């Protein structure tokens, strides 16, 4: 887009947007807080359910496009060995995501690359096409955040149809990045107005760069065989929490769930930390131990992905460090690698 389109809205923009979209019959995901205190994007029908101040949501966006378990196909076996296949996919309904963080939006870039690589993954792309992403720029990154180390920024606009600046109590500035973003602004009607000529975006939030992915890759290029992998994977349980919470991890399994003469073929999240992930039917396993699997995790994100898709498969959200049961720390490992 040539000249950048900026709009302004009241501090209450999030709640008014929820109400405007819900009134128009559009599906809305907005930040909510559970009784236990967990913040997450959830389907809302009224602005009363929405909270306005939070560091980030518990889960990234990927499950909206690549659900944890998704039906790919239904079948029913008839007489004489015949099989009926279904369902015909229904036209997808419009969905607006309000209030995700820039890192989680940026992760859609990595997922898009994988799911739009020679083959366009229809179940993914349908959900992606119907969705408008409205992100909220970060003014106070969490201690675990490291987006600036992996090419992102607390104000990054990548894959955000709209990027909103402004805290809970100040007026909001909305940066429109795509046609979907324009449509979103239209829907908000007179609760938004074009920003006056010469309006500037707020000063970028400072976030120190914690490692250099180029240097990390340089070491990874040379060290497929290294004691590092054993030493740093000893604690890993192979539970997959880090991948399941990762905005860019996308590995999946395809399985049939049968019940008598009918059933479903599903794709379910999978993870390279699991021992069965690469196990051959012969019993041979190319990644026989947790060290090899931990290596795959780092190699895939910081070496293979840059080589194949031109960037690291990490957006610096910090969820893996925050949530690992045994305190495996990706950031510390990358800093360690960089110092080698």
């Amino acid at each position, binding site marked *: 887009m040539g000249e950048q389109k900026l709009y302004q809205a009241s501090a209450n923009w999030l709640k008014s947007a929820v109400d405007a979209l819900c009134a128009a019959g559009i599906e809305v995901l907005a930040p909510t807080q559970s009784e236990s205190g967990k913040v997450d994007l959830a389907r809302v029908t009224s602005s009363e359910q929405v909270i306005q101040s939070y560091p980030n949501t518990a889960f990234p966006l990927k499950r909206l496009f690549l659900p944890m378990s998704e039906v790919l196909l239904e079948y029913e*076996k008839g007489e004489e060995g015949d099989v009926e296949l279904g369902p015909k996919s229904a036209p997808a309904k419009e969905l607006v995501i309000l209030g995700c963080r820039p890192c989680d939006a940026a992760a859609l870039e990595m997922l898009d690359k994988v799911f*739009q690589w020679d*083959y366009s993954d*229809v179940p993914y792309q349908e959900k992606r096409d119907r969705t408008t992403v409205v992100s909220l720029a970060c003014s106070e990154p969490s201690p675990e955040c490291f987006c600036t180390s992996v090419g992102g920024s607390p104000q990054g606009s990548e894959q955000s149809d709209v990027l909103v600046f402004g805290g809970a109590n100040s007026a909001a500035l909305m940066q429109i990045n795509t046609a979907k973003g324009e449509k979103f602004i239209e829907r908000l009607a007179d609760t938004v107005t074009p920003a006056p000529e010469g309006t500037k975006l707020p000063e970028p939030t400072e976030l120190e760069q914690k490692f250099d992915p180029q240097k990390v890759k340089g070491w990874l290029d040379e060290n497929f065989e290294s004691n590092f992998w054993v030493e740093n994977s000893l604690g890993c349980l192979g539970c997959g929490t880090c991948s399941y919470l990762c905005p860019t991890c996308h590995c999946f399994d*395809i399985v*049939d769930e049968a019940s008598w003469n009918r059933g479903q073929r599903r794709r379910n999240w999978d993870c390279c930390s699991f021992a069965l992930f690469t196990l*051959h039917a012969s019993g041979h396993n190319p990644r026989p131990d947790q060290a090899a699997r931990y290596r795959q995790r780092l190699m895939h994100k910081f070496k293979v992905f840059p080589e*194949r898709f031109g960037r690291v498969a990490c957006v610096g959200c910090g969820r893996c460090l925050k949530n690992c049961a045994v305190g495996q720390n990706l950031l510390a490992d990358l800093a360690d690698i960089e110092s080698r």
Partner: protein
Amino acid sequence: MATKNTSTADQALIPLDYKPSKMRIERITEETSDTKTFRLNFCDADEAQRFEFRAGQFGLYSVFGAGEATFCIASSPTRKEYIECSVKRMGKVTAELHQCNEGDIIGFRGPYGNSFPMEQMEGKNLLFIGGGIGLAPLRSLIWNCLDLREQFAEMTILYGARTEADLVYKEELKTWQQMQDVRTAYTVDPGGETPEWKGEVGFVPQILEKMKPSPKNTIVITCGPPIMIKFVLVSLTGLDFSLESAYTTLENRMKCGVGKCGRCNVGNQYVCKDGPVFRCSDLQNLPQEF
């Protein structure tokens, strides 16, 4: 070897919804006690008409209720009326497939992956080295080459299995043996022979060394168990073959077959997209994760 994203903006993407084509099992051939060959026909005439593939490519075959499994297409692209796959009983899907009868309907999606380098093979001597069920992808290629026989120089087939009973495609082995313009050598591991066995006895690499094929103007294609491939490559090097003109296939575990599920990575290669056919010299530069 490709190291870049192979897609470009102007290259049309192929939509993939993971729904398989329905195929009817036309014929089942029992190859060994644990391996059967299935001849399949598309239920939909248009799909049959449109379907094309190259030797070396694979598909995801499914038994509804059991799931999908990866097998190469074992028939030749020159035989367009059907496709065939040869399946060794290993686990859930393969066991279910072995329970199927002629007339049953199964699923197929594909063809996926790269293929054998037919263009580079033109005018060359061809040496096929197979072991066990590894003859399946080679069989597609061998018939492909036999159907275009005049395009190639000498053709040599070396095939081995653990025992006589484990040899697959027994009728075709005889057919190839009787052909004037094909040299064959069949072998079984020591102890795997019956008193009637007229072939060689010994491991495939040993027989290869005994045959002393000339590396001159020759392309080698070898498929079989990893341990056989490993020693075949040692023997080839000993016979002055360059691994640049030797090709093999990898069989990493796969789910999607199209570069999305993340399962088949070896270094930065996706076996399902950059393979399954690899030049042996390229494999040596990859992390040994296969």
